[in-house]
């Protein structure tokens, strides 16, 4: 039966790549897809604070979550957190990448130094900043005190005690740890731009600013979009900075949704999972909107 033999051979041939793809697919299934499935399931279940399943919760977890009086503030704060941190990071990175693309003595050392905030653990960086901001002996306050600007132990020196100033400082730390990655992504982008283009522009009499706007920026767009998108996701999910510096407190006044999710987990596992589902959907929506708004396909392809 030649026909059947042909089919068998075709199936074998078609299945052959599976042998190679299989492990990767299995890995993605186990470490990515499965947790998402469990997450959605947990958000619809009723758990005791000790992790015992005692039945279905229907939509109760979501109802309880939306009844949290602090949720509105937390959502608004999360939006501010992502927008401000990513915008400032990208702007600074553009400047830094430009700088590091120039030839100057010590460039190699400077490029290495830029990696430091990236290489250091985020928890460590956050702790360093937390102590630097200590209201009695932090180095920031010692400096400001010597300039006669703040008094030790005063409300002004208590940067992490006041929710607003604490949040601003945490944004600064978030920008600090996000800079290296974005700068390197943009630097890589800059190096793909052929120098002839700038040369031609110069011959045509374009000013440096004009050639930056009309040549560098458009050609940098794909690198910029990739870096910005990855930053959006990272900053949205950022946990250690806020957790180490204020713990989201007082109350939930410096929490983002990611931190709030963890705070809920102590006693309300299902509700915490519901928050996590919302986070998951938010990230997907934000990413889709981002891709749409930046006409991703035209740019990156």
């Amino acid at each position: 039966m030649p026909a059947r033999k042909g089919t068998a051979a075709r199936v074998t041939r078609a299945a052959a790549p599976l042998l190679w793809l299989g492990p990767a697919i299995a890995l993605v299934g186990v470490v990515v897809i499965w947790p998402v499935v469990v997450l959605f399931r947990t958000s619809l279940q009723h758990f005791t604070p000790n992790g015992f399943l005692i039945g279905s919760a229907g939509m109760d977890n979501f109802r309880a979550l939306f009844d949290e009086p602090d949720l509105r503030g937390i959502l608004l704060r999360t939006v501010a957190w992502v927008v401000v941190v990513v915008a400032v990071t990208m702007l600074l990175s553009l400047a830094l990448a430009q700088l590091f693309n120039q030839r100057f003595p010590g460039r190699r050392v400077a490029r290495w130094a830029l990696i430091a905030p990236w290489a250091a653990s985020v928890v460590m960086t956050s702790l360093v900043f937390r102590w630097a901001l200590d209201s009695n002996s932090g180095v920031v306050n010692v400096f400001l005190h010597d300039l006669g600007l703040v008094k030790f132990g005063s409300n002004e020196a208590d940067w992490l005690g006041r929710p607003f100033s604490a949040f601003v400082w945490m944004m600064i730390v978030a920008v600090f740890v996000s800079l290296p990655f974005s700068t390197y992504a943009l630097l890589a982008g800059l190096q793909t731009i052929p120098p002839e283009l700038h040369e031609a522009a110069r011959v045509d009499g374009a000013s440096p600013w004009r050639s930056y706007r009309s040549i560098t920026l458009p050609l940098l767009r794909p690198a910029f979009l990739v870096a910005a998108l990855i930053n959006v996701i990272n900053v949205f999910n950022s946990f250690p900075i806020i957790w180490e510096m204020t713990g989201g407190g007082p109350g939930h006044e410096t929490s983002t949704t990611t931190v709030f999710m963890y705070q809920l987990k102590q006693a309300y596992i299902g509700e915490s999972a519901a928050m996590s589902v919302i986070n998951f959907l938010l990230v997907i929506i934000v990413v889709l909107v981002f891709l749409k708004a930046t006409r991703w396909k035209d740019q990156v392809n």
Partner: protein
Amino acid sequence: MKRRLLGAVSLALTAALTITGCGSSGGGGGTNGTATLKLVAADYGTGPENTSQKYWQDIADAFHKQNPKITVKVQTINWNDFDDQVKTMVQNHNYPDITEGDYFPDFAQAKLLYPAKDVMSDSTFKNLIPVFANLGTYNGTQYGMPFTTSSRTMFYNKKLFTQAGIANPPQTWDDVKTDALKIKALGKVGFGLPLGKEEAQAETLLWMLGNGGGYQDNGKWTIDSSQNVETMQFLADLVKSGATEPNPGTKNRTDLWKQFASGDIGMINGQGALIPIIKSGGKLSDADWASVPIPGKTGPLDKTLGVCDNVSAFNGNGHQAQIKAFLDFAYQDTYQVAFDKEYDLLPATNSGVQALSSDPVFAPFLKALPNSVQYPNDPVWSTVKSQIQSSIGTIVSKDPKSVLSALQQTATKGS
């Protein structure tokens, strides 16, 4: 050929990852009596030189020498994270064998713990001081085993009081406010008020007691009672007047104790454990500070808060016999006294109390212990406690009544 090799290698790697991922569970229990016990304890130390890791490791080593089949693995966790981490272990069903630190009544309710009598010999069990027995009891059976205790008093800086022209320590809330403002005028903090995550539930209760309030009355939750609302209103006003450090909701006990020890705070509620911090600070001599009963609304408290930290024995790994052997060993007087001398806390055993009752440092605190007020004995307490820790600091920025009502709602809703 090369590519095929690469594929084989990656396949092997993936397989290895999957296998190790599954293989890490399972405890150290053996059939021939060998076992590894996982002990998780709160760290009472203020730094690497007096960490509780050392205290427990010494006991574990001595115990292992006598019982070579049982190894005790010690893990100590900083107080700020202790509750979170123990809770997470339990939620993931990754049970320790023994914990020492905060006690969770809901673990007993969920049948995760051995009754005290099953993991202690009769003589060890009977030696536990009786005041705290009720706190660890659920449905008539005692699960929580007191390991160390403390009673609270108010510490004040005599030097600052003299400088501010104050003759006597405060007796009432009004005194506290007046004195604190006088000390603030010296450029120091008047009253140190730790409403941050570390132990806000203790500070809150101490103030509530001063106005005849509390978390519970006869087993009924009374968090949003009118006395408590009045108390929190007073506290919020005290903070707004500048008599305390700024933003107390973000300040932890240990940090403020260290500040008291460096002479920057006039008054603070404390316990024995503050004494070694003062001594190691080197700024205050013994004559520069004193401790007195905590001021209430109209006069000093006659009953103070007595806190005990408990040992719990988890049944998740089935190490009952080994836990029993270890606890009988660890509750010996030498270790009780060593612990109390190291951290200036109080013992939890009758013989330990006797051994220390003539010591001038411990005597006043020991005397207050028998008629002290304790935390609620209720399974929902651990949830309420963590909400107090995260939210009580917001009485300054929000309406105190709404903060207390939210807590009351959590308490009465159950889990």
